[in-house]
C-alpha cells in the first residue's frame, strides 16, 4: 500500500481488483503498478482473464471488488467514455474500426473530444469551425504518418489489409489524449515483417509520447522483445511477475502454459536415446 519513493503516483495502480460472474471468479486480487513510459506485458493461457482485466480498467465491466487508480485518481464506477476522457485507451482483440468510414475519418472521430465548436458554429461555418477542422486534419495526418498509413487517408477502413487495420487502430488510440495505452493482442494475425513494424511503432509511441503501454499478447517473441516487465495470469490470478528472463524460466509459468511436467510432451532428445 505504501507508495514508492516518487513524488508522482504511478500512472496505473490496481488494488485487489477483481470481478465475479455468478459463481465464477474471472479475475481475482489483481494488483499492478505501471509507471511513466513503462512497457508491461500481460500474458497467460487462453481464458486466464487478461481481456477481462482490460474490460475492468476501461469501464466495460464494473469490478465486484478492489479498485484502480489513474494517476492517483480512483476510476471505479466510471463509464467507458469517462475513463477514455481521463486517458485510458484500448484497442480490441477483434478489430473494431469504423469500417465504412475513411481512414482519416476513423482517426478524426477518435479526436472528437479535442473539438470545441458547437452546433451553431457548424451550421454557420464560422471561423472557429474551419480552424478546428483544419487543425484536426493536420494532426490526423501526423498520426497516420506515425503508423505508416499516410496517403491512404481516403480509403475505406474496411478495405485495408489486416496489418494496416491494426495500425489504424493504434493511430486511433494515439489520437486521444491518452495517459495509458492498452493493446489487446496487437500482433494477432500478423506476419513477422508486420510484427517487426509493430515493434517499431510501439517503441516510437513510448519514446515520443512517453506514455506507458500495457499489452496482452500471445506472440512470445514480441513480448520477450519489447516488454520490460511481464505479469502472468492463470485462472484469474497472478502467478508470476518479473522481467522477461525471470518469467521464461519460472516453472509455474511453464506449468500454466504446458500443463504439469509429468504430462508434458517428452522431449525429442529423450525419445531418441530411449
Amino acid at each position, binding site marked *: 500500500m505504501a507508495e514508492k519513493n516518487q513524488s508522482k503516483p504511478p500512472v496505473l495502480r490496481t488494488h485487489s481488483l477483481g470481478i465475479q460472474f455468478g459463481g465464477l471468479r474471472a479475475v481475482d486480487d489483481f494488483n499492478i503498478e505501471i509507471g511513466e513510459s513503462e512497457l508491461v506485458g500481460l500474458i497467460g493461457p487462453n481464458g486466464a482473464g487478461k481481456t477481462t482485466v482490460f474490460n475492468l480498467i476501461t469501464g466495460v465491466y464494473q469490478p465486484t471488488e478492489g479498485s484502480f487508480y489513474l494517476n492517483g485518481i480512483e476510476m471505479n464506477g466510471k463509464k467507458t467514455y469517462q475513463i*477514455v476522457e481521463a486517458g485510458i485507451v484500448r484497442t480490441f482483440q477483434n478489430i473494431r474500426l469504423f469500417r465504412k468510414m475513411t481512414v482519416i475519418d476513423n482517426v478524426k472521430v477518435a479526436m472528437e473530444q479535442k473539438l470545441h465548436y458547437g452546433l451553431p458554429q457548424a451550421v454557420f461555418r464560422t471561423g472557429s469551425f474551419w480552424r478546428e477542422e483544419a487543425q484536426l486534419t493536420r494532426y490526423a495526418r501526423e498520426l497516420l504518418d506515425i503508423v505508416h498509413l499516410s496517403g491512404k487517408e481516403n480509403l475505406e477502413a474496411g478495405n485495408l489489409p489486416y496489418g494496416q487495420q491494426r495500425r489504424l487502430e493504434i493511430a486511433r488510440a494515439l489520437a486521444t489524449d491518452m495517459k495509458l495505452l492498452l493493446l489487446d493482442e496487437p500482433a494477432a494475425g500478423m506476419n513477422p515483417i508486420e510484427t517487426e513494424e509493430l515493434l517499431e511503432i510501439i517503441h516510437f509511441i513510448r519514446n515520443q509520447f512517453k506514455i506507458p503501454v500495457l499489452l496482452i499478447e500471445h506472440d512470445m517473441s514480441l513480448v520477450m522483445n519489447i516488454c520490460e516487465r511481464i505479469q502472468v495470469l492463470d485462472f484469474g490470478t497472478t502467478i508470476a511477475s518479473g522481467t522477461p528472463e525471470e518469467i521464461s524460466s519460472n516453472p509455474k509459468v511453464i506449468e500454466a502454459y504446458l500443463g504439469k511436467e509429468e504430462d508434458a510432451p517428452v522431449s525429442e532428445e529423450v525419445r531418441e536415446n530411449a
Partner: protein
Amino acid sequence: MKKEVLFSYAVNMIAVTALFAVFVLLFETRAFGNSTQYIQGIFTTACYTIIMVTSLNLVVGFMGEFSLGHAGFVSVGAYASAIVSNALAGKGLSDLTLFLVALLAGGIAAGITGVLVGIPALRLRGDYLAIVTVAFAEIIRVAFCNFPITGGGKTISGILKLSTFYRAFWVMVVCVAVMFLFVRSRFGRTVKAIREDYVAAAASGIHVTYYKVLTFTVAAFFAGIGGGLYAHYMTAMIPTNFNFMYSAELLSEVIIGGTGSLTGSILGAAFLSSLPEMMRQFSQYRMLAYSVVLILVMIFRPGGIFGGWEFSLKQLASSLSGKTKSKAVQEKEGM
C-alpha cells in the same frame, strides 16, 4: 483550401437559384395553364415531405436507429405553429414574418418534444426503440385528441394559408442545407461512427447517449418545421392525420430513397409525394405499391436506391473534366 469550399458553396447556391428561377418562370407564365394552382400544390407537398423525410434520415440512415414515431413530431410542429400563427394574426406582422415565426415555433416545440422523448427512448435499441417511438407518437396523438386547444379530437380549420410554393421552396432549401452542414461536420462524423460500432465509438471517448439525443432532437426540430408547412398549406387537420401509418410512410420513403443519403431522401420524397397526386385514380394502390417496393428494396438493395451516395456538383464537374479520374485510379490501387 478555403477558396475551394467557398467556390463549391457558390456553385450550389447558383444551381438552386437557377432551379428556383425555372419554377418561377413556369408558374408566372402559366405554363401549366389551369393546373398551375394544382401543380404548385403538389410541389408544396413535395417541399414539406422532403424536409420530413430528410430529417428522419438523420436518425435512421446516419445514426442507424429506429424511429417509427416521426409523425408525432410533425404533429407537434403542425399544431404549435398553427396555435402561434392564430395567436399572432392581425397583430401587425407581415405575412412572411408571421409565417417564419410560426414555423420556428413549431420547430422549437417539436425539438423540445424530441429531447423529452429521446432521453428515455434512446436507452433502448432496435425493436424496442421502434415500439417505444410508436408508443410516444400515439401518446401525443391521444393527448392532442383530448386537449381543447388542439381541437379536442375534432378537425381544426381556418389555419392561415401562409405556405405558398415559393416560400415552401426556400424553407426547404434552408432546412436541407442546414442538415447537410450538420452531416459534414463533427456531428455527422460522430453519428456515423455510432452507427458503425457504438462500442468502439464509446471507446473513442464519445458520449453516445448525448449524440443520439442531439441528433434525434435536430431531426424532431426539422420535422416540426415540416409540420408547420403542412399545417399552413392544408389549413385544416386532425390528430389522426399523424398516425402510425404516416410514420410508416415517412420511414418507407427514407428506406427507399436511401439511408444515409440526403440526396436519396430529397429525390425519393419529391417523387413519392407527388406520385399519388399524379396517379389519382390509382390512389388505393399507392401504399400497396410502397410496401411491395419496400420489400423488394430490403431484399435486393437494403441501402435503398441511393444508399450512402450523395450528389455533388463539384464531383460532377470534375468527373466531366476528367480531372479526378487518375486520382481515383491511384486510390484504388492503394497507393
